[in-house]
């Protein structure tokens, strides 16, 4: 893997929503280049546009009122709009916040992961898919495979649900994994486990990991590079060590000050 190869290039991206007929720009002229194999963090408070950015990359802004008004996104050198239908869920996957509502309540957990494999590998046989689900469940730390496979989501704990969702996201060996606030809605102890699981999977599967978070400490601890977003703009974007030692933008400085205050 060459150090300089970019897997994701976002240039001049503006995206937003029509609310009551008026256009609200949630992401303004964003430029990001994400290297293959790195852990990248997008930090910002809620409403700063970080989730919109992720949705724009996935091509999943709401059909009725979402819009990319400017800019381009390239995935592995290809314009994303040309390839996203094919690669969504296969080469690029997402894990979202609050696992409690992200599994279909009336479909068994295993079945939902099974679907995710089947849809991208129509040639695989049933046993092969099953074996792959089992393998992935164990990889994400769901040891009690049989039981969890046949459980409905309400019979699982929050941490288990999040692991099922992570299994679903990584089962097709994606190149890029976007984790959008993957630990909110989980208690502190589980949060740490889940974040460590991400790093472990990143090593094992050669992922490029993009963590979207409001918590600058997560960025500091886990990411190689970080971008700070404020009101839809990327105000600072550099490697994490520099970001923490020499923050340039007022907002970054403020975030760091708050963190320091909390830790005192």
């Amino acid at each position, binding site marked *: 893997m060459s150090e300089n190869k970019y897997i994701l290039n976002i240039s001049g991206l503006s995206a937003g929503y029509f609310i009551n007929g008026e256009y609200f720009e949630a992401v303004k002229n964003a430029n990001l280049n994400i290297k293959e194999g790195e852990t990248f963090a997008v930090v910002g408070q809620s409403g700063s546009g970080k989730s919109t950015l992720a949705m724009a990359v996935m091509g*999943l802004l709401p059909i009725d009122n979402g819009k990319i008004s400017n800019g381009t996104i390239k995935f592995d050198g290809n314009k994303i709009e040309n390839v996203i239908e*094919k690669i969504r869920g296969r080469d690029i996957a997402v894990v979202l916040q*609050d696992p409690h509502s*992200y599994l279909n309540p009336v479909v068994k957990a295993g079945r939902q992961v099974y*679907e995710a494999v089947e849809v991208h590998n129509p040639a695989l046989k049933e046993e092969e898919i099953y074996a792959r689900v089992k393998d992935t469940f164990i990889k994400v730390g769901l040891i009690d495979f049989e039981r969890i496979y046949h459980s409905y989501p309400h019979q699982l704990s929050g941490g288990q649900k999040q692991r099922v*969702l992570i299994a679903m996201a990584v089962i097709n060996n994606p190149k890029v994994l976007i984790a959008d606030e993957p630990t909110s809605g989980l208690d502190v102890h589980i949060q740490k486990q889940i974040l460590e699981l991400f790093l472990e999977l990143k090593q094992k599967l050669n992922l490029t990991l993009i963590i979207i978070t409001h918590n600058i400490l997560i960025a500091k601890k886990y990411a190689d590079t970080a971008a700070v977003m404020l009101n839809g703009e990327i105000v600072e974007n550099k490697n994490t060590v520099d970001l923490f030692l020499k923050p340039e933008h007022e907002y970054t400085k403020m975030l760091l000050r708050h963190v320091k205050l909390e830790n005192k």
Partner: protein
Amino acid sequence: MKKLLRNKFAVLGISIIALLILAAFFAPVLSPYGQSEQNLYQRLLPPSSEHFFGTDDLGRDVFTRMLFGSRISLAVGFISVFIILFIGTFLGIVSGYFGGKVDSVIMRFTDIILCFPTFFLILLIIAFLEPNIFNVMAVIGLTSWPGLARLVRAEVLSLKEREFISVAKMMGIDNLKIFAVHILPNIISPLMVYASLAIGGAILTESALSFLGLGVQPPMSSWGQILTAGKDYIYIAWWLSVFPGLAILITVLAFNLIGEAIRDVFDPKEEYVRK
């Protein structure tokens, strides 16, 4: 299915419907009389061991006519509801899921259909077409779906905003699969409840049409036809109204029981709470 059989109301409902289907199927074997065999010496006889449900104004055996009538009622119920479910669910899902212009077009069309009082629309169409059983089924099916379409649309509107649908989309699962795997199982309970009620409704509509002479044509019989023939004699021959009325009541009730039970079975949370 196993879970369904553990529910005693479901078993009751299923038994009644199964019994009815068997009765309809074996009608000629079960009764010594013909469907339209008349005996004018035995007019308006009360129920007895020879005529379980008595005889009507032409001396025909009511029990026999009801056995044959159950064929009509069940066929009308099932087939028209099948049409309703097919059209209503399809339009509802498409409309709710895709939203925007598709939604507007489908919903305005639904509103137009909904504007007509269904029964008069059916009357109008049947008056143009030949009044026979197939037209009745088709017309009931083709005019009664708007309610279901709106119900399904409303369910889908809230479902599609649910996070697991966005996860499915993010996993690249295509729309057809999302409908089949994620949306249908979630709306199956309202669908079933609606279907069970609609079967009853369709049976009633058929009865009403037969009453007006636009449904099943004599000498074929249907419950509605016997019921309405009985109204002229209600003071002297109660059995002509009571038995077909009871038959309709019990059938509709049985479908409701099944609908209710299916709702419980398809809702995994329900079971969890009960444990």
